[in-house]
């Protein structure tokens, strides 16, 4: 438990520091863009007598690339921060829709290794599990890692679909292109559930990870 909290706190702090780095890069590249704009304005004011900066368009393109990477980094920061705060003391409930979205974005690289992509279906409503966010995240990550090698079809896509059943909330981790052979192999390699916290069962094309619904 202490290790978990330590890692959570460190992840949240790293995310905060990263944010500051990104903010500085963003403003510095923005300032370059400002000066580029001013230089062009001055060149136009001199009726073209002052030559314009030869690499203006290339520089503008580079600044846009930097800004796009800052946006990308901001997304990573957000997810890292959410992951870090998942170990915070707090309510013993977690929204499985939020967890699916978080794992969907954190596991993108793992899916790529299997030449697959991850899709996350939007939860139609809040789906509160009687479990801590960190428990939902680790269970879902385990299931995703178990299903990925058996994912087939073209293109390969693994879908995380949160939903509600009788007294439970769940996330289906399914692959539309999974062959019968893959399904059999998956059934044999299925990780165990955790009594009192979650169950894992086979569904068509994948696995259902289910938690008791909070407040039931």
């Amino acid at each position: 438990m202490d290790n978990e909290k330590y890692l959570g706190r460190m992840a949240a702090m790293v995310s905060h520091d990263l944010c500051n780095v990104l903010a500085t890069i963003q403003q510095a590249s923005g300032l370059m863009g400002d000066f580029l704009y001013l230089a062009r304005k001055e060149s136009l004011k001199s009726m073209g007598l002052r030559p314009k900066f030869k690499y203006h368009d290339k520089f503008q393109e580079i600044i846009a690339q930097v800004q796009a990477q800052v946006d990308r980094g901001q997304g990573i920061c957000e997810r890292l921060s959410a992951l870090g705060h998942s170990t915070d003391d707090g309510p013993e409930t977690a929204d499985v829709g939020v967890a699916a979205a978080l794992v969907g974005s954190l596991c993108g690289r793992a899916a790529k290794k299997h030449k697959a992509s991850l899709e996350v279906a939007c939860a139609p409503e809040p789906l509160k599990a009687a479990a801590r966010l960190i428990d939902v995240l680790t269970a879902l990550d385990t299931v995703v890692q178990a299903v990925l090698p058996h994912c087939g079809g073209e293109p390969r896509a693994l879908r995380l679909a949160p939903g509600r059943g009788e007294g439970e909330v769940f996330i289906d981790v399914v692959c539309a292109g999974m062959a019968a052979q893959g399904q059999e192999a998956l059934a044999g390699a299925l990780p165990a559930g955790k009594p009192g916290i979650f169950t894992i069962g086979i569904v068509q094309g994948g696995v259902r990870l289910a938690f008791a619904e909070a407040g039931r």
Partner: protein
Amino acid sequence: MKDWNILLVDDEEDFVQTLAERLELRGIECRVALDGEAGLAAMAESQPDVVVLDMFMPGIKGLEVLRLIRERHPKVQVILLTGQGATKDGMDGMKLGAFDYMIKPLSIDDLTSKIGEAVKVARS
């Protein structure tokens, strides 16, 4: 140049100096302080309309600086800067009387218009 009096308080020196330069290019003159103590001292010297205040700095924490500003300079409006995952701190700041909070990294256009709104309130 606009006649707004803005104070930026952030311990990330490169960030805050660049931000000040960009705001100045947009006609907004700013003073810069690198921690809460320096910010409060700058305010005692000359009261700004708006303070853009980072919440996580060494020394006095942002929320404490905010509380002191509200106590000593009730007309001054404060825009808080927070990192990802710290929206709760931003909300706490709003409860303490901050004008608004923004998440880093932030767009200069959003900040400029937020400062404009805050100046209006500070001068009303």
